[in-house]
Structure formats: structure tokens, C-alpha cells
């Protein structure tokens, strides 16, 4: 993991996004991905009953006035929600474009946009500054969770290179390697939503090395179907998260270690 920068040679080719290095790499894009890897973690898990997105709440300062809207989770349409990792200003550009595109699609076809189509549209936007000059790549990866009638529940990740992939479970941000290796072992294809939520919390704690998880630290959003068969995107209330923490048996180790987050 991490970026191997061979001293000297690669550095000469990393100033512009439109130049390949001698090793055939786009350094600016790789630096953008590195920027994402240093950001507050977010993760997504796909179950057969729904998709779960979780993010650590970023608390920069006590003096910040409480925001009514989230800094990491953004609703794109009634059936698609995304979680952002990286520079939030870059992400907002994409989120706004995503919202417009969803409504344009609905206006034309009178049907909600298929999730993959939206992800592809935004990935194309992300790709543009990696190939055309004078701008830097987007410094965000985005996890999309949604439901459509074609492919049911889906989880996608779009990264700064303009690639996107469909995932069963994915972690972004600091310590994502811990989270991903944990998920590789614990993830099962036929999990229920409840099991998925417990797994989400465990993975989150693994990624954050958190010993005392509290509901105020996380944001968890679930995409599921409601009783009438329509799509529901539900942010979990603190009480529900506390309940999950109690049920998932997250063990508190003996020594309490101080931890700081970026």
C-alpha cells in the first residue's frame, strides 16, 4: 500500500495531470487517490435486504455551529445516497451535478435514474480533468448506495481516476486496509440487514481503532425497501446505533489508549 515515488525521475512528471511519467503513471491522479486515503473513513456494505453506508463524523472544532446537513452523506435522489471521502468542496461539485442529472433523467424518461448510469455520468465528469489540461483531478472518492428496479440494491465506488466499480463492501479513507482485510474475512453474501449493520459497526471500529464507539461519532444510513415496496433511505437515529453497539459485542480492551483523528 502507499505510493512508491522513485526519487528524481517521477517527480519531473508529476506537475501536470496531462503527462505520463516514465513509468507510465499519471502522478497527479495517484496523488489525488493518496489524498483520499488520508481522509476520514467511510464504508459501504451491500446486503440482500439493503445497502448500508457509514461514515465517521468529522469534528474539527467545538466552535463549529451544528450543521443541519451532513458533511459526508448526501442524498442524490430519492433512491440514491452517496458518502464522500476526501475534499468536500470537490465532492459538492459532483453531488450537485449528480442531483441535476437525476432530475434531467426523470424529466426525460419519467423513471428514476438507474444507479449505475448516474455513477457512470459522474465518473465521466471526474475523468475529464485527468485527461484535459489546466485543472487538477477531483480529490474525492465517492461511495454510492442505491436501489433501482433493474439491478436492485447496489453499491459503487468512484475514485479520482474516473474509474468506478461495483462493490459488495468497501472502505475508504484512513486505515482502509484494516477495514478491507476485516471485511474480506467477515463478509457473507447472504447477510440480513441486521447482520450487515453489526458488521458495519465492527468494521468501523476496526478501521478507526475505536475502543469506545459512541453513536455521536458515526453516521449510518440504510437504503432499504419500505412496507409498500418503495425505496426508503433512512439515517439511523442515535438510539438505534447505541442499540447496535450493545448488541454487536464490541469488546473494550483493558488499557484505554488515547487516539486522535485527522
Amino acid at each position, binding site marked *: 500500500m502507499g505510493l512508491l515515488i522513485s526519487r528524481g525521475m517521477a517527480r519531473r512528471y508529476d506537475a501536470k495531470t496531462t503527462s505520463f511519467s516514465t513509468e507510465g503513471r499519471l502522478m497527479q491522479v495517484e496523488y489525488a487517490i493518496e489524498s483520499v486515503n488520508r481522509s476520514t473513513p467511510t464504508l459501504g456494505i451491500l446486503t440482500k435486504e439493503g445497502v448500508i453506508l457509514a461514515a465517521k463524523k468529522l469534528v474539527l472544532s467545538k466552535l463549529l455551529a451544528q450543521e*443541519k*446537513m451532513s458533511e459526508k452523506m448526501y*442524498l*442524490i*435522489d430519492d433512491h440514491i445516497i452517496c458518502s464522500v471521502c476526501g475534499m468536500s468542496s470537490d465532492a459538492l461539485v459532483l453531488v*450537485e451535478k449528480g*442531483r*441535476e442529472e437525476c*432530475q*434531467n433523467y*426523470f*424529466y426525460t424518461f419519467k423513471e428514476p435514474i438507474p444507479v449505475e448510469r448516474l455513477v457512470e455520468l459522474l465518473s465521466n465528469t471526474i475523468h475529464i480533468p485527468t485527461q484535459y489540461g489546466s485543472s487538477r483531478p477531483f480529490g474525492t472518492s465517492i461511495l454510492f448506495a442505491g436501489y433501482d428496479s433493474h439491478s436492485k440494491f447496489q453499491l459503487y465506488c468512484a475514485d479520482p481516476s474516473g474509474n468506478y466499480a461495483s462493490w459488495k463492501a468497501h472502505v475508504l479513507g484512513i486505515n482502509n486496509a484494516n477495514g478491507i482485510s476485516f471485511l474480506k474475512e467477515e463478509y457473507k453474501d447472504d447477510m440480513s440487514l441486521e447482520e450487515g449493520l453489526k458488521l458495519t459497526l465492527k468494521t468501523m471500529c476496526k478501521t478507526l481503532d475505536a475502543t469506545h464507539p459512541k453513536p455521536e461519532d458515526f453516521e449510518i444510513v440504510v437504503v432499504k425497501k419500505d412496507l409498500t415496496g418503495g425505496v426508503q433511505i433512512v439515517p439511523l437515529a442515535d438510539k438505534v446505533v447505541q442499540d447496535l453497539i450493545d448488541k454487536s459485542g464490541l469488546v473494550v480492551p483493558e488499557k484505554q489508549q488515547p487516539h486522535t483523528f485527522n
Partner: protein
Amino acid sequence: MGILGNKMSDQYNGAALVGMCGKECVAIACDTRLGVQLRTIDTNFNKVFKVNDRTMIGLTGLATDIQTVSAKLHKEEKVYRLEEGETLTASMFANFVSHFLYKQRFAPYIVTPIVAGLDYDSITKEWKPVMAGYDLIGCMDQNNTFAVGGTCSELLYGACESFYKEGMGPDEIFEVISQALLTSMDRDILSGWGANVYILTPTQLITKKLLTRVDQQLFQYSNLLSVKKKKKKKKK
């Protein structure tokens, strides 16, 4: 004389629309005829659309513009809701409609919208009715009584002036608006063939269908398709 003739565009499809303000409620009613000049094509063409829980919009004029404008306004409302995290208030939406129509000042949508909604006033803790009528390029006429639109608008003005009174409740407003619409609509050949009445209160949206005169010239495509041809057996 056709669809693009400016003078005849709003008389091409035919419509009737009326909105009334009551005490903490609003009502909006439309006919359900869609015609091509004197021929009736559809008898279930609704012209009132729900924007959100507190606002309704009704449109008359050229039917294709009714469909496009309502779709575009829905889209704008949805984007606003996602971006701001809260629903548009009725008066904001009413102002937005005016702006939206004026953007097309020199190639206007041939529509006459009426916005009917309820605004919550947190100071007096009351729901105030919002009723706005417009011309096709967005001149907003906001008052606390009624608004009319459509091919029989002159008749509607007369009926509303006579029947309307201030401070009606949901039940009374339903009676009044239905009478006003029916009396005007029945005299107009281009509108009629059924009516929908919507009463918006702070807690619910009541939808009612009225039985009206159904005797304009009719050309039902659906009926033609369902008629089965009887095959005559050839006698050998």
C-alpha cells in the same frame, strides 16, 4: 388557425381552472377534457398537479405546454428539496413560477398557471392560504380570494364573484368551488367532460371527482380499438 397560431393556441385544447382561498385551506379545481379544437380526445386529462405537501399547481392553455411546464417545475422543486434539505414553501414556489415563465419572455409557454398553497406563519401559528394566478409570461396576481384560468375564464370570474365569500372551511369551499366551476364549464364547449376538485388543508389533501355534463362532440380512440369485428362466415 392551427397550434402555432398565436391567437388560437390557448383555445386549441380547452381547459377550465379555478382556485379559491378559505380559512386555513385552499381549493383548486379543473376540468378533465383534452380536445383538439372541437374534437374531444381524452376525458381524463388532469390539469392540477401536486408540487409538495403544501402546494398545488394547476395549468391551462396548450396541453403540451401544460405537460412540459408541470414536469419542469416538478424537476426544479425536487432539485431544491435535495439541495436545501427542506421543502419549498408555497409563496416561494409561487414566485418561482413567475420567474420561470418570464425566462421565456420571447418564446413563451402558452399556459396560465394557478398556484394554490398554504404557508405556515410561525409568528401567528396559522396556515395562510397562498393563491396566485399568472399570465403566460409570468405576471403574478396574488390575492386572498380566487384565481381563474382557461377558455371559460370570463364565465368563471362571474361565477366566483357571485359565489365566493371569505373564511370558508373545507366543506363549504368544496361546494362553492364546484358550483362555480360547473356553471361556467357547462356553458363552454371547449372545457368540461368531468372535473377534479382538490382541497388542501394543513393535514390532508382531499381529492374529489365531480359528475358533469358529458355531451360535447366525442371521438374516443380507445373505443374504436376495442370494437371487435364480426367475421362473416362464407356460405359454400
